[in-house]
């Protein structure tokens, strides 16, 4: 049962694909997250609409995960960095499956992108410009302080959880399964954010002030979160002793590709090395 000798070098087994050609250098993983999964589209499901749905949710995950990861080495304590990194990792996993599903449903999403040694999920993540991304704008706003991060995480995880609950009933078995897999993960994300929101709101004068400011800053952007569950906000704001802000809705529309000035620099950081060495392999 002991296969420790195989794990002497954690990367050896992963890199040796037997062809001697190596792997594309910048991929998120060395593996197909939907290997062997039947991606046939059932009758009555429009491939283009299905691909667009998957792509948008994947973009939400990718961009929000990038912002969460910006806390690494800057968090208030190491346990919180681990928490936010774990949450980001869950989102990246969901994102990878969604990108692969989108490309399998509609190969047209890869038009104009490099496809030689580059896997579809990586082409979509690393080689599209901001005008092609369909994430909601709340995901791309700068990292902010910890209160902002927590309020944003609550808004997005509560909404994504509601969305995934609906998608569990989708006619496409692959999207339905991706949603099902992500549900309990998102439940933990939402609870983590909610606990922090309540803790900060009821903490010191400073933490309360920052939480109120964070809520004012986040609220206008929730207008893009279609179907955002109001009960979640009632419960959490009730416990926190905070009132729902009155702000005007955002004038942007991430789902239509109308992004803020924050997305382009985020993507530059995420994509620049891959774009500088598009053929890189190791």
């Amino acid at each position, binding site marked *: 049962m002991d296969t420790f000798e195989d794990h002497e070098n954690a990367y050896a087994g992963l890199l040796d694909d037997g062809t001697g050609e190596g792997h594309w250098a910048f991929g998120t993983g060395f593996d197909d997250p939907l290997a062997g999964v039947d991606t046939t589209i059932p009758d009555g499901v429009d491939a283009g609409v299905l691909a667009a749905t998957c792509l948008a949710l994947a973009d939400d995950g990718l961009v929000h995960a990038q912002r969460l990861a910006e806390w690494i080495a800057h968090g208030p304590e190491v346990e919180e960095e681990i928490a936010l990194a774990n949450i980001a*990792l869950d989102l990246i996993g969901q994102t990878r499956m969604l990108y692969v599903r989108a490309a399998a449903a509609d190969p047209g999403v890869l038009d104009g992108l490099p496809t030689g040694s580059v896997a579809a999920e990586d082409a979509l993540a690393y080689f599209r410009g901001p005008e092609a991304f369909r994430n909601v704008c709340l995901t791309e706003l700068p990292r902010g302080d910890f209160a902002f991060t927590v309020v944003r995480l609550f808004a997005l995880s509560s909404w994504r959880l509601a969305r995934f609950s609906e998608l569990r009933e989708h006619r496409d078995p692959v999207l339905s399964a991706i949603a099902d897999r992500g549900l309990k993960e998102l439940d933990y994300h939402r609870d983590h954010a909610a606990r922090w929101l309540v803790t900060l709101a009821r903490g010191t004068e400073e933490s309360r002030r920052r939480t109120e400011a964070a809520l004012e800053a986040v609220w206008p952007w929730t207008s893009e979160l279609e179907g955002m569950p109001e009960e979640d906000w009632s419960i959490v704001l009730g416990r926190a002793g905070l009132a729902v802000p009155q702000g005007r809705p955002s004038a942007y529309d991430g789902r239509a590709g109308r992004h803020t000035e924050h997305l382009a620099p985020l993507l530059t950081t995420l994509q620049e090395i891959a774009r500088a060495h598009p053929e890189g392999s190791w």
Partner: protein
Amino acid sequence: MVTAASDVRALVDSVVDPELPMLTLADLGVLRDVSVDGRRVTVTITPTYSGCPAVAEMRADLVRVLKRGGYEAEVNLVLSPPWSTDDITPAGRARLSAAGIAPPGRVEPGPVLLSLSPTPVPCPRCDGRDTERTSRFGPTACMSLWRCRTCREPFEHVKAI
């Protein structure tokens, strides 16, 4: 008599979880199917968490172990029904405890939003019930961090999911 099928089964059963090496993939509950056709084997597994990086290594390990046994293997994924910690076998749970990792409780149905403080997880070392959670998340996707107020040791706990 050792049939190809039982030989293959033994090989597959020898593959352990890369992060929790006291558990075989069978103990973990991620093995969904093993089918044999002469010297060709198709194994189907399901991912634990969406972003779990160990899945790639599990697949590579299965292919390598079967190749050493003289089989050409393909490892496919199936997403549905999703993996749950309820799929971890009783033997697996016992092995986690013995290794100092608190095994998961039964998965509770329904959302966890702002639920009351978690039921204290018994300490895997001293079985004390006076334990507290220090972090909802841990060094791997599947674990949370706890400490025991009786024996003072920290320990990991596999979250129910």
